[in-house]
């Protein structure tokens, strides 16, 4: 696993050296911050905790952020041919997958941090409103972490299946929205699957987390999708060695 660290640093460098990543990060921060601002100004005077106005739009924007950050992970290397230099270096498939995953996830979490910090800025600037509930904010952060971890893993495996970054981004975005809202759709259909549907809907779980309730169903769902995606990634990379 020693090389995973080297690859993590290289992924971070690739992101911070490319203007595209700064553009993506800036747009994400504007969009997520703007959504919070809009929520706060529309609900002025009502007794709604500010974190309830943050985490739902944040997760929606996160799908766009992770799709654009992960699209290049493997698709770009395949297109430019650098996958050949990478895979002929003495690295294992697992190291490559974990290194790239860690790099992309770090970037996504670094982008989320200032948005969450906006809550504290709001708290600082408006002494009139009730103080922030730290537990509830922490719950929301746990959800953002779980959701980012899952989205990046899903994005990575999709990026590995194509050499076209646009295809990777659109497929990732679509898959993430299915994961967010698919459960609701399942519950809404007259199939008698309302129970399973609401368990599988990640969007439905956000509410619990932003009240400070860490729901194990959502933890298990996110963790298992993450693990499965990373496992699939290693196996897909290995198929190169098959005939």
């Amino acid at each position, binding site marked *: 696993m020693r090389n995973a660290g080297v690859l993590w640093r290289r992924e971070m460098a690739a992101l911070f050296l490319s203007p595209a990543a700064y553009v993506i990060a800036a747009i994400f921060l504007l969009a997520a911050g703007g959504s919070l601002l809009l929520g706060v100004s529309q609900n002025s005077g009502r007794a709604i905790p500010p974190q309830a106005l943050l985490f739902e739009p944040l997760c929606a924007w996160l799908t766009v952020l992770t799709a654009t950050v992960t699209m290049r992970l493997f698709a770009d290397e395949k297109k430019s041919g650098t996958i*050949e*230099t990478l895979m002929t*270096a*003495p690295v294992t498939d697992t190291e490559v997958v974990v290194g790239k995953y860690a790099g992309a996830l770090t970037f996504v979490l670094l982008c989320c941090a200032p948005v969450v910090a906006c809550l504290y800025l709001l708290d600082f600037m408006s002494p009139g409103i009730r103080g922030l509930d730290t537990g509830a904010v922490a719950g929301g952060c746990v959800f953002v972490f779980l959701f980012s971890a899952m989205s990046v893993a899903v994005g990575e495996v999709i990026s590995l299946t194509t050499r076209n970054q646009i295809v990777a981004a659109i497929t990732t975005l679509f898959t993430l929205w299915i994961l967010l809202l698919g459960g609701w759709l399942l519950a809404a259909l007259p199939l008698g699957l309302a129970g399973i549907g609401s368990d599988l809907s990640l969007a439905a779980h956000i509410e619990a987390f932003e009240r400070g309730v860490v729901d194990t169903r959502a933890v298990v769902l996110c963790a298992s999708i993450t693990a499965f995606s990373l496992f699939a990634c290693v196996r897909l990379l290995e198929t190169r060695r098959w*005939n």
Partner: protein
Amino acid sequence: MIHVSNLTRRFGRKLAVNNISFDVQRGEVVGFLGPNGAGKTTTMRILACYLPATCGDVRVVGRDVFRDSVEVRRRIGYLPENVPLYHEMRVAEYLVFRASLKGLRGSHRRRRIDWALANCSLTEVRDRIIGNLSKGYRQRVGIADALVHDPDLLILDEPTLGLDPNQIRLIRGLIRKLARRHTILLSSHILSEVEMVCDRVLIMNKGAIAGQGTPEELSGILRGHTCVALEVRAAPDAVHPALSSVPGVLRVTAEPLTGEWTRAVCECEKGREVRASLFHAVVAAGWPMRELHEQRQSLEDVFVQVTGGAP
């Protein structure tokens, strides 16, 4: 260093490499020659552990490329065709990344990077962004990357592809310098280059090895006899009988040149040295002579003949 036996690689129905076998000994510089699509790159990718073989036994540095892939990769340096690099990185940054991946750390890594930069004449561009460099520099960055961990074996796929003559000369000089310390397998379709740097040549065609040997051996295989050409100042009618009577000469063709000179080409028995006898015959006849040499078939002739191209 490399042992390949009965290697076959298919892509779907297409047979890219068809049951080839060859060996490369430690310290050799071997050239892989062949037209485009002959299977050179596929074979090199299999040796570099990038592609698996469909069947056959491939051992590099004494290890199986499939079972012991990471160890093989640690001990070879591979330059892929077209030299894919991360264009947003700086030269030194890129080499630090590659050297770290190959397990180099600390001051040893720094020393090896400085060594590779100096040997590939890259020191003056070490802080430049790779994407802004010329193709010749990028090619050398690729070679520096292949060299940085001091591998036992270097596999270079078309190291001079798309370079200008000056850059080709530079790369060729570098390969010659490296040949003293490393075993090298390189592919090319520039024949003069292979002839100049390689001890041995493997000619591939349509997925099979069509010929192998030193450039001299390959010329010999194709020709049953050697030819000696000479130019003397005498009439063709006089030259013909005088040279035909020299022992070992099978056939003489003489044709007049300008200013009373005649060019004669003597086909001689294979392996028999007749140049001294020819010289004495000319001296005995009292003719001035301005040229006498054995005609060697160039690798280009061999290549065209073996790969069935247009004559």
